[in-house]
């Protein structure tokens, strides 16, 4: 197991370095004058330019810049945005909101997706199964931002069941609608994945053997079929975290949730390069670490992996 963790860590480090290098290179090295590029058409005042040159060590050679950028990233010294606010402080304030949103969305897709997938898989070919299969395709086909607008309009404005925008009043309850929007597409994927792997495991030899041992049906279903079906689902949930982050930008934008995604969305609208790079780097860091955790979960779910050469 320790071997496995070490090996995964050794693989994760180059990936993290590579990805941040890619991001950094694209923003600070590819354009001739990064400051001009960061500001686009606007003319910043000289004080801001000087602060940026210092923050990003633009007078140093590229590799030193990058090294210092990494150091700053790990010490959460992310510099200031255009209004002079420290980005790290802003992130610290908005991050919990996004975390709540993500957790709620994860629960929706993880718990309900797996439950519905299990139910459909066990009743393969029956009415529930075919209904769920078609519905999930339709859900997958509706883009998150379309779904967001439609639900905002119908549930929020016309039916008045939920507040159409969240605003400053962030609670688990007010986040429910945006989390539902954010989690729905992945919910459909999780459902289909669970269903497929439940069907595959139902026909596995060891499930037949478990039944032959005299186990009750619920035991066979939960300890053998469902347990083994979780393995691909865990992998998907990890890989999908990136999609969740992308979705958070859209969802937070639509529902006016004061989270990281919205900050990023606003930064894009205002072309605030440094803020974009800082937030994306933090996201990449989270994504990489989260995937490492998922890998550990995966190893726990599937003991064969731990001993794999």
């Amino acid at each position: 197991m320790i071997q496995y963790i070490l090996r995964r860590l050794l693989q994760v480090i180059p990936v993290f370095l590579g990805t941040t290098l890619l991001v950094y290179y694209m923003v600070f090295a590819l354009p001739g004058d990064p400051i001009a590029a960061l500001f686009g058409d606007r003319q910043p005042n000289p004080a801001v330019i000087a602060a940026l040159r210092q923050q990003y060590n633009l007078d140093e050679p590229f590799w030193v810049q990058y090294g210092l950028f990494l150091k700053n990233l790990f010490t959460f010294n992310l510099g200031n945005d255009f209004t002079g606010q420290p980005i790290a402080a802003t992130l610290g304030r908005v991050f919990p909101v996004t975390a709540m949103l993500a957790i709620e969305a994860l629960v929706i897709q993880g718990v309900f997706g797996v439950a519905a997938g299990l139910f459909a898989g066990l009743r393969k070919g029956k009415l529930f199964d075919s209904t769920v299969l078609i519905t999930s395709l339709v859900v997958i086909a509706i883009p998150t931002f379309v779904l967001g607008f439609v639900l905002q309009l119908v549930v929020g404005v016309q039916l008045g069941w939920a507040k159409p925008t969240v605003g400053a009043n962030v609670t688990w309850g007010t986040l429910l609608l945006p989390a539902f929007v954010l989690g729905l597409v992945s919910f459909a994927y999780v459902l289909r994945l669970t269903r497929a792997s439940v069907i595959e495991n139902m026909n596995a030899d060891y499930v037949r053997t478990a039944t032959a041992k005299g186990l009750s049906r619920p035991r066979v279903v939960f300890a053998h079929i469902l347990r083994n079906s979780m393995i691909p689902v865990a992998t998907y949930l990890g890989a999908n975290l990136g999609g969740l982050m992308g979705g958070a930008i859209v969802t937070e934008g639509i529902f006016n949730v004061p989270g990281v995604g919205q900050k990023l969305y606003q930064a894009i609208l205002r072309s605030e390069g440094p803020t974009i790079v800082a937030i994306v780097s933090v996201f990449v860091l989270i994504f990489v670490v989260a995937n490492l955790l998922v890998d550990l979960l995966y190893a726990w779910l599937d003991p064969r992996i731990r001993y794999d050469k």
Partner: protein
Amino acid sequence: MTNNFKAEHYVAPIDETPLLATDSLKSDQAPLSLWADAWHKLRRRPLFIISSLMILLLVAIAVFPGLFTQVAPNDNCDLQFSDGAPQPGHPFGYTFQGCDVYSRVIHGTQASLAVGVLSVIFVVIIGVTLGALAGFFGGWLDAFIARLGDIFFALPLVLGALVITQLPFFKDNKSVWTVVMVIVLLAWPQMARITRGAVIEVRNADFVTAARSLGVSRMGSLVRHVLPNALAPIIVLATMELGVFIVTEATLSFLGIGLPGSVMSWGNDIAAAQSSLRTNPAVLLYPATALSITVLSFIMLGDALRDALDPKSRQR
């Protein structure tokens, strides 16, 4: 073991259990290749029929929009019709700018399909080549391509696109091609992974070894035996990704970092319509529905193909 139960020796009546020739060839059906077999199954699936008809229609709209609407999408915009209700000849009503919604939805098809199809073509070319080489040859090449893929994979699509589109080159040259480039750059690792897995599954099959010992070269066996047998998951993923890329384009356009405003696209129209969401939601719903139906068609086609091409469902 002794047993006082006297077992008798039973023989079934021979005329009831006739002895057939060992291993006779069944010759009552026409030969079936894998593709013919898949086609056979697909022809009878409603999911396949509906989705292919939809896709044919969409392609026709994209190529010949003039056949479906006489109204030019931009020329006749008139602010007096701003957010106007449907009228004869303008079945979907008017946008905030007073443009005909139906015409814009028809003309927006082209951009979406173009981005989807072009992105898939390049993703397949790059992803399949790299994935096949990595899976077939293994070793350091595999490790290198895998790490390279991981680096791009760790950049979630929308986030990566945000960064890439900050580059002056992309800011200054916004077009269908820049959107395609962004998508291809970020989406090839997925295709490479799937291809790699499929190739690894096939590369050690006896028929590949047999071909090698016939004198077929390594590259030859990759191209002639391994890849054709690894094609099924690639086709399925490519079809599904076509739908996904169309969503991505719309999302990027919606965020303002996709297609330029001058290109008519569903994503741009949805973004433009959000301001009048509460007063005139129809303006948003029409392009959104067109977008969803298009994506649904490709996802359904991919799903039908997956069932038909699944080797497990073939009788041997």
